[in-house]
């Protein structure tokens, strides 16, 4: 393999592997209670891809291990055995996956993947043999254990319908070493594909490069797989530029020798004219494909590429840069179209075009903003594995419910919250949820539940982790805090919330024993530290005997919110729409003042406090007359106030930016945003009006 593109390929390889492993983990954990056929297929496919890519990159340790797992799932897929011990199976596969992951971590750190997977492979083989021994009907299980390099392979499942395929593969220009790519392709075809012939025949010598570059790589083979499966498999080829795949007539009872005799013929036809397809063809798909190739090869290429790769990875700093440039674009647009020199001119078409320009710029802006947002689902689904592993080890029975995983947060934020969530879940499982027998004794369901929920609330993202365990032990925490000399005031003056927050101090653990999961007092400390970095906070609520709820409040930083822009003394402010219940004009007869001077307003029989924003912020040129301005009813949790402002301007999506660190935290303001015309609008922190 040449060195020139090795680094880029390695990067791509590790990125793909990580994605695949994540997907695989999800599939496996979902399937622990019994796999459906589609899940088995999916896992098989993923393992197959991992194996293929790894052997292409010459990482033997990975490819052999994934090959063993692939064999296992091949057996499951082909024979669908009953009475499979899925729990053990999951353990084995997860162990194998961890091995692969470890190797990939080594690769990405620039080390050699030198791990020894023979133990794991032996376990997998043993399990497979056990399975085979269990189902007596198994006779032709010699299948799929060795991936031999001989181009013509022995058929493994002759009973299924054999189809013949012809494929013309072109590699991208400049991908180099086409013969090696072709060889890898043939080598990785897998065990379902038999009677492979290809032109040119000799792929080892470099003389094969030129013909492949000029005419493409012609491949014909037989397989039990469907057209779509084959197509999908071939499309995974690295550096694939175009693929023309045709299926010859199905041949159910064909004997291997006969087929072998026919193959060269087909190959010859394909070689003679690939675009006109095989004459005996009766599959409409292949005709379509052939026509398309003949009519418009470039369009075909484009289609193939878009279906092969829908997602690309981009460096976050590039996105940051794009966002900043976007801001500049918006401002210069405003400077051009609102240029004072244009004012005296009659410019009908100019304004029309300018409106169009603004429309397009707005759309780009929306897109740029949404690019940075990713759903929490990846972070959340990783937790399934943690819950599962811990349950096994601690012999507890716990299910993890996930709600609101589609909630989107900025990329930077997801990186910082994965660890806190993991530590809290570990804590809940280890300390919170009791052993099954204890739960039954307390009249709780035997199976414990951990709820992981995300939602947008009041402009913040809330992540709630709730367990139905025994709750925090107030006395124990108090004693521990006292012993550690942490108390700063008389014991009786501490509120439950203050006591609960002791658990976030470093080195604070009420567990006498250090387990493999907790007890060292490190985890909860991490929660606080990580949240501080992104300016978030955590609140613990606990009901003894009923469970503990951790609420992580993640600030708006960099998130995109729907905001209502309001005007106050000439300045614009933005209120998160989620906090707004309604807005209305006040009438003097509904307003009254208590002896302390607090103004209140009656709305549909309910009475609310009136907060004059101009007084809170010390703005002196705002409207004072309550009938003249506008009342905005704001909600935060179960509290409601009416905010008085000058007027509403309108609703728009905004990117939240922090006020500079130099200014620090300002009460009642959570950040600022740039409006379309480049003006700055401060974002009101609705929560700030409530906790006084």
């Amino acid at each position: 393999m040449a060195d020139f593109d090795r680094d880029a390929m390695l990067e791509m390889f590790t990125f793909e592997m990580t994605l695949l492993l994540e997907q695989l983990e999800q599939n496996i954990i979902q399937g622990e209670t019994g796999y459906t056929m589609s899940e088995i297929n999916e896992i098989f496919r993923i393992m197959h891809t991992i194996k293929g890519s790894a052997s292409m990159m010459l990482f033997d340790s990975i490819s052999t291990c994934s090959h063993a797992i692939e064999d296992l799932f091949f057996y499951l897929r082909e024979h669908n055995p009953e009475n499979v011990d899925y729990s053990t199976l999951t353990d084995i596969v997860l162990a194998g996956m961890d091995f692969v992951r470890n190797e990939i971590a080594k690769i990405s750190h620039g080390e050699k993947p030198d791990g020894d997977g023979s133990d794991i492979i032996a376990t997998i083989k043993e399990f497979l043999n056990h399975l085979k021994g269990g189902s007596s009907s198994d006779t032709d299980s010699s299948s799929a254990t060795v991936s031999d390099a001989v181009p013509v392979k022995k058929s493994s499942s002759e009973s299924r319908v054999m189809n013949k395929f012809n494929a013309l593969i072109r590699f991208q220009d400049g991908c180099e070493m086409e013969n090696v790519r072709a060889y890898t392709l043939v080598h990785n075809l897998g065990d379902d594909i038999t009677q492979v012939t290809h032109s040119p025949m000799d792929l080892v010598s470099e003389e094969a490069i030129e013909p492949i570059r000029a005419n493409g790589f012609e491949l014909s083979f037989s397989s039990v797989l469907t057209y779509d499966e084959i197509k999908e498999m071939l499309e995974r080829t690295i550096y694939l530029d175009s693929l023309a795949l045709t299926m010859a007539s199905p041949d159910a009872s064909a004997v291997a020798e006969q087929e072998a005799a026919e193959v060269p013929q087909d190959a010859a036809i394909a070689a003679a004219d690939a675009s006109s397809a095989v004459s005996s063809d009766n599959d409409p798909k292949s005709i379509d494909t052939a026509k398309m190739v003949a009519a418009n090869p470039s369009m075909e290429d484009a289609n193939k590429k878009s279906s092969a790769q829908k997602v690309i990875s981009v460096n976050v700093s590039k996105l940051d840069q794009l966002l900043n440039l976007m801001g500049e674009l918006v401002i210069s647009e405003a400077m051009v179209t609102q240029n004072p020199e244009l004012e005296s001119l009659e410019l009908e078409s100019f304004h029309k075009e300018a409106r169009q320009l603004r429309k397009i710029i707005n759309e780009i802006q929306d897109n740029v903003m949404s690019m940075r947002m990713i759903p929490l689902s990846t972070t959340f689904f990783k937790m399934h594995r943690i819950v599962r592993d811990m349950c096994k080890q601690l012999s507890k029975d716990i299910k993890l419910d996930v709600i609101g995983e589609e909630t989107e947060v900025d990329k930077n934020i997801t990186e910082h919250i994965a660890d806190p969530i993991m530590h809290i879940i570990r804590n809940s499982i280890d300390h919170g949820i009791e052993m099954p027998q204890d739960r039954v004794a307390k009249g709780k369901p035997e199976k414990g539940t951990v709820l992981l929920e995300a939602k947008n609330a009041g402009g913040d993202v809330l992540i709630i982790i709730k367990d139905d365990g025994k709750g925090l032990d107030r006395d124990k925490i108090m004693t521990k805090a006292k012993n550690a000399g942490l108390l700063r005031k008389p014991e009786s003056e501490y509120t439950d919330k203050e006591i609960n927050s002791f658990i976030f101090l470093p080195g604070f653990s009420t567990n006498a024993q250090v387990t493999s999961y907790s007890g060292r007092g490190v985890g909860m400390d991490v929660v606080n530290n990580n949240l501080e970095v992104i300016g978030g906070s955590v609140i613990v609520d606990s009901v003894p005997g009923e469970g503990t709820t951790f609420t992580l409040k993640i600030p708006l930083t960099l998130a995109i919110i729907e905001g209502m822009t309001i005007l106050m003394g000439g300045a614009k402010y933005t209120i998160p729409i989620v906090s707004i219940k309604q807005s209305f004009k006040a009438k003097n007869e509904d307003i009254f003042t208590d002896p302390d001077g607090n103004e209140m307003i009656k709305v549909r029989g309910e009475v609310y406090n009136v907060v004059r924003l101009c007084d809170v912020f010390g703005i002196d040129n705002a409207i004072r007359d309550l009938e003249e301005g506008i009342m905005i009813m704001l909600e935060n949790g179960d509290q409601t106030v009416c905010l008085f402002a000058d007027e509403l301007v309108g609703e728009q999506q905004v990117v939240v930016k922090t006020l500079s660190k130099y200014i620090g935290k300002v009460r009642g303001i959570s950040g600022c945003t740039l409006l379309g015309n480049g003006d700055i609008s401060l974002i009101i922190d609705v929560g700030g009006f409530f906790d006084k």
Partner: protein
Amino acid sequence: MVTDDQEYGMYNSHSEFDTPEDTTKGQFLTFAVEDEVYGVEISSIKEIISICEITKVPLTEAHIKGIINLRGEIIPVIDIRARFLKPDVEYDDLTCIVVVEYARYSLGLIVDRVNEVMHIDDENILMPPNAKLSHHNQYIRNIGKSGDNVILLLDLDKLLETEH
């Protein structure tokens, strides 16, 4: 040279990367606030922009005038007049915002007018008078001489210190 660096280069966040031959060494941007001329080493300066619309941030210290949008970046601006407890004046065409890089973030300083970039030799840089008659020179690190003129070289660390 090295000792000089330690002497007055402390407020220069880039000083550790500067080579002794650095062209920015000894170069100062001078600007006027009321009747005095002040100087800041140019390596801390990002750019100079003319005064633009400033968004007030309520409930902040008096010298923080607010924030501005500099091509998408939110930058707090400080009025040097307010910091030096001098009376406010109307901003005019000469009023400028000097954007400095301080402790890895950008800050704007509002000054009455920007004069020039000048070179001041090391021997023309003096310590401020050490008699502690008043604490009004608390923001001044050194005094530079250029011909008959005196330039007060600012200590950005102290100037930008906040109470929180």
